């Protein structure tokens, strides 16, 4: 029996096709362990060997990785949601109802997108919290902390722009409250210090640029949709790349020197 199973396995794994895809098995040799990481496009973000404490959850809290995972979840569910959603005032809300009641697993899809996004806000804060408490922003990792703050801000803005898209009372008023702050921008808002003196009016100030109108309306929906689905995801991807790259270049995970 054992011989038969081995033969079956070999007939699959000892073929040219299999070997061309999978370079390594699971042999427990140091060489193979190096190669598992080096030859894998996803795992090679990691060094082949890490300090002992980098494997302790009580040190890393896993929060950076979980944040990245949640970002991937929102990206995948977000693309799927885009198949069913039209960012115009006429259709947006009815498309939400369509997702909720007609699309198979539509509600589940939307739930997962929303909860992953909220979870990402929490885990990114926890990640910052951990990095601060371990003093990991100290030299030589100063710049990566700055990149991290940019990512944190982008995460909040990504979440905020997505908040408008359901086009219900909750979203329109939450975004109204949020964007009302822009009127008070010093110099650039029509209610901000020295704004009126510089000729700012409700129809030409920074809030008008943001909303595409004097109140949250159909142009705002389209603007936030484009920001949410194109601008911020690309922005985030670029800075995530820099963030990961710099972890390695700055000497990997921080530890007692």
């Amino acid at each position, binding site marked *: 029996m054992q011989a038969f199973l081995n033969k079956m396995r070999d007939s699959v794994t000892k073929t040219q096709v299999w070997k061309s895809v999978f370079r390594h098995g699971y042999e427990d040799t*140091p060489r193979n*362990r190096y190669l598992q*990481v080096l030859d894998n496009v996803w*795992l090679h973000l*990691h060094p*082949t*060997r*890490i*300090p002992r404490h*980098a*494997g302790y*959850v*009580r*040190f890393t809290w*896993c929060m950076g990785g979980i944040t990245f*995972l*949640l970002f991937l*979840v929102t990206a995948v569910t977000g693309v799927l949601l885009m198949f069913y959603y039209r960012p115009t*005032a006429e259709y947006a809300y009815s498309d*939400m109802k369509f997702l909720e009641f007609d699309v198979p697993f539509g*509600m589940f899809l939307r*739930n*997962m997108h929303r*909860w*992953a996004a909220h979870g990402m806000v929490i885990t990114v*804060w926890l990640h910052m919290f951990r990095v601060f*408490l*371990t*003093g*990991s*922003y*100290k*030299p030589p*990792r100063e710049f990566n*902390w*700055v990149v991290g*703050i940019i990512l*944190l801000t982008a995460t909040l803005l990504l*979440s*905020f722009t997505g908040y408008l898209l*359901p086009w*219900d*009372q*909750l979203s*329109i*008023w*939450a975004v109204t*409250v*949020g964007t*009302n*702050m*822009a009127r*008070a921008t*010093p110099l650039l808002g029509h*209610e*901000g*210090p020295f704004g009126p003196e510089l000729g700012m009016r409700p129809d030409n100030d920074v809030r008008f640029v943001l909303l595409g109108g004097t109140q949250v309306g159909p142009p705002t929906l389209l603007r936030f949709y484009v920001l949410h689905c194109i601008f911020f995801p690309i922005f985030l991807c670029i800075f995530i790349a820099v963030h990961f790259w710099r972890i390695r270049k700055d000497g990997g995970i*921080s*530890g*007692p020197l």
Partner: protein
Amino acid sequence: MDNLMLILGKPDNIPIIMMLVLFGFFTWLWWREARKNDKLIREGRYCELQAENNDRIFTWPYLARIEFLAAILVMVILTVWSIVLDAPLELPANPAKTPNPSKAPWYFLGLQEMLVYFDPWIAGVIFPTIIIVGLMAIPYIDRNPKGNGYYTWDERKFAISTFLFGFFALWIALIFVGTFLRGPGWNFFAPWDYWDPHKVVAMVNVDLHQFFGIRSSVVAFLFGGFVVTAYFALGVLYYYWKKKTDFVQKLGAARYGVLAFLFLCMMGLPIKMLLRWLFNIKYVWITPWFNI
């Protein structure tokens, strides 16, 4: 109390509860690890920490397996969460019907709560900018070489206590108040209160100059300007007072200036909260262009 349970149970507020639990747990975890490390350092056994850092383990399998397990765990939690709890969808958007209260998404409610104490140009524009820039400035201000790469408390008391105060008292707590204790008209409601949209609140707020009986608007303008300038001048005074200390020497004038400015801005919020809650003081400085 029913009212509080109603708000607590809103699907969008569940993440806040989860966040509070998570931060409680991780703060406890930090404290445990920090005390352990501090004890080692006190006993002169820092080299044991270093030894752990110099000891290498294989990424495959020791890190990869943790990552995969964490990913599975998170996906299970997320899947269950998405099955059990539906994302909210209220009535269609109606610009003519303003809900009372209107609230920003929960992670911005700290900023919305600041609006009680500062005008929108500060609470909504200047403070967010200062928070972001201030966070970015941390590695360049903090010149303490200790506590790099391990949990500690003894070696970084000022940095950690300032950060924890800002994060918990001025961000998380304000989110909590803004979400759970602010009802119609953004009035304050205790957890056991009914959210009465007709709650009558006496308009008892005064400005600082009125508190001191100053009537002339010119004198009030000068007085308020003096108070605000004097507040920031405290940073300068402290510099000349502590100039000889190791702390200020290591920072240098430029870094000290940035640190003092950021620190005083941050402390401005709890100061104005106290002024409001204890003395009903609204503005400190009134000018024709802006109020502080």
